[in-house]
């Protein structure tokens, strides 16, 4: 039971990461590596502010900081014409230093005894067990983000961002500032990812400067799992499936590590395998169909 609750807690919280990855990889069609840096940025910003006694402001600051990081990557790729992957790497590496600066040079800080949004929720919902409250808090964040993102991408400006990822030439021909739209999209994606890091810091009770490493592959695995589960390709379902994918992914990890099939530190390997398998499906399908055709000829 506690394993299930644990999976739901982290699944919902990292659902925000999955939505962010969905926005950059699927909607914008940009392989944005800023994610790992902005996740850690949100984590440390939130942690530092929480220690200072401002857990809520910490989440706001985390989101804004992540958006700023997205803007930097957007600026590098649209205005300075740096390839998106490199632009993301540049931002990500510089964030490592910036994150250390935010933590005053410490690679790790604890927020264990501080007031967090989770503690506030325990007081608000005394009738539930703490573990259940954590699930509720995670779910509220994930569902709130889903709602805001779905609303936003249905507005005029949101439609422009979706179109940029689909056919940039057409967007330019429609007198929309494609560079601005793309940068805004990256800002929103990284804002969500940083918010995710911010909530996670308060959930887990500490912040480590290297916590971002491998988060991208976790988000990507969630998105891909969601796409396998929900076949319908629309904006609304795409975003919901990212969160569902995150929960299912966490379920898989829980089964694999919780029952000691693999040690608990193997989560990233498992995600990498999931992503590699999912990405290999088209090639494997093609191979099979070629083999079938060849077989028919020989027969």
């Amino acid at each position, binding site marked *: 039971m506690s394993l299930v609750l644990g999976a739901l807690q982290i699944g919902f919280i990292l659902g925000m990461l999955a939505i962010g990855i969905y926005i950059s990889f699927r909607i914008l069609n940009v392989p944005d590596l800023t994610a790992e840096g902005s996740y850690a940025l949100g984590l440390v910003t939130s942690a530092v502010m929480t220690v200072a006694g401002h857990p809520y402001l910490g989440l706001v600051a985390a989101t804004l900081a992540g958006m700023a990081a997205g803007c930097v990557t957007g600026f590098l790729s649209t205005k300075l014409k740096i390839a998106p992957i490199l632009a993301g790497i540049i931002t990500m590496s510089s964030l490592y230093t910036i994150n250390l600066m935010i933590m005053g040079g410490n690679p790790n800080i604890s927020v264990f005894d501080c007031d967090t949004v989770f503690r506030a929720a325990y007081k608000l919902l005394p009738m539930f067990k703490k573990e259940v409250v954590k699930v509720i808090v995670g779910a509220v964040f994930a569902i709130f983000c889903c709602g805001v993102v779905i609303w936003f991408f249905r*507005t005029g400006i949101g439609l422009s961002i979706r179109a940029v990822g689909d*056919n940039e030439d*057409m967007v330019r021909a429609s007198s929309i500032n494609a560079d601005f739209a793309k940068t805004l999209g990256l800002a929103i994606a990284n804002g969500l990812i940083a918010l995710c890091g911010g909530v996670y810091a308060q959930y887990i009770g500490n912040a480590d400067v290297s916590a971002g490493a491998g988060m991208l592959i976790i988000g990507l695995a969630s998105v891909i799992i969601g796409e396998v589960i929900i076949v319908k390709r629309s904006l609304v379902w795409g975003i919901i499936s990212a969160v569902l994918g995150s929960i299912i992914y966490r379920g898989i990890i829980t089964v694999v590590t919780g029952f000691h099939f693999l040690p608990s530190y193997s989560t990233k390997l498992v995600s990498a395998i999931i992503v590699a398998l999912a990405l290999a499906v088209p090639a494997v399908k093609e191979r099979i169909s070629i083999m079938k055709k060849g077989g028919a000829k020989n027969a």
Partner: protein
Amino acid sequence: MLDIKNLSKTFAPGTPNEHKALDNLSLHLDKGEFVTIIGSNGAGKSTLFNAICGTFIADAGSITLNSTDITSVPDYKRSKLIGRVFQDPMKGTAPNLTIEENIALAYSRRKSFNLSAAIKKSERSFFREKLASFGMGLEDRMKTKVGLLSGGQRQVVTMLMCTIVTPKLLLLDEHTAALDPATSEKIMEITNSVISENNLTTMMITHNINSALKTGTRTIMMDSGDVILDIKGDERENMSLSDLLNMYNSKSNKQFDNDRILLSH
């Protein structure tokens, strides 16, 4: 309306691939003119359109549209005034967005970024009405992703997107060349009616010389980055296909021997 003065553009200057694509080209269009453009492959026709749209900034010369100097205005700002349809049906529409989303995007060019719903109810029925007027049944497929449409259907959607906010200038770059003859004819029909309905100032590149002479009010011929022939009125009325080809041969000192040129249709 459109005034192009001494426009020049050289690609890859200073390299072995240096190529003068526009060579001191000047051209003036009056409001409501419908100019057809012919010329062999590589003559610089699409490059001229690119220059007008701001895909690149010309090396020299000026472009004035609607009495505004747009020579160094960025492309996306120019597209407020200019509608453009390409030969490739994939180019003008976003495949993963629905028909109505595509049209809404084009329709939104009249306002700046906004946070209200992308498609309003009243707009939806307006789009429907417009699509229905083309008689291709697209009005019943407003929620279909554009990627699922045929090339001709996509060109119709593009055509509507380019004209739903009346542009000052409409540029058509062999926009029926990728379609089968029947569809191509249908699209030309729609093109003509949209242009005359809105009295649009239009430039149309075509490789069909016959239709170049029959469609529109004026025909220009391009070669090596410049206009080598410009006819309208009676002169154009009385011009036969062979006259035009002879003229080309004498002016450019080469044969109009292009596989893609259709002499008749």
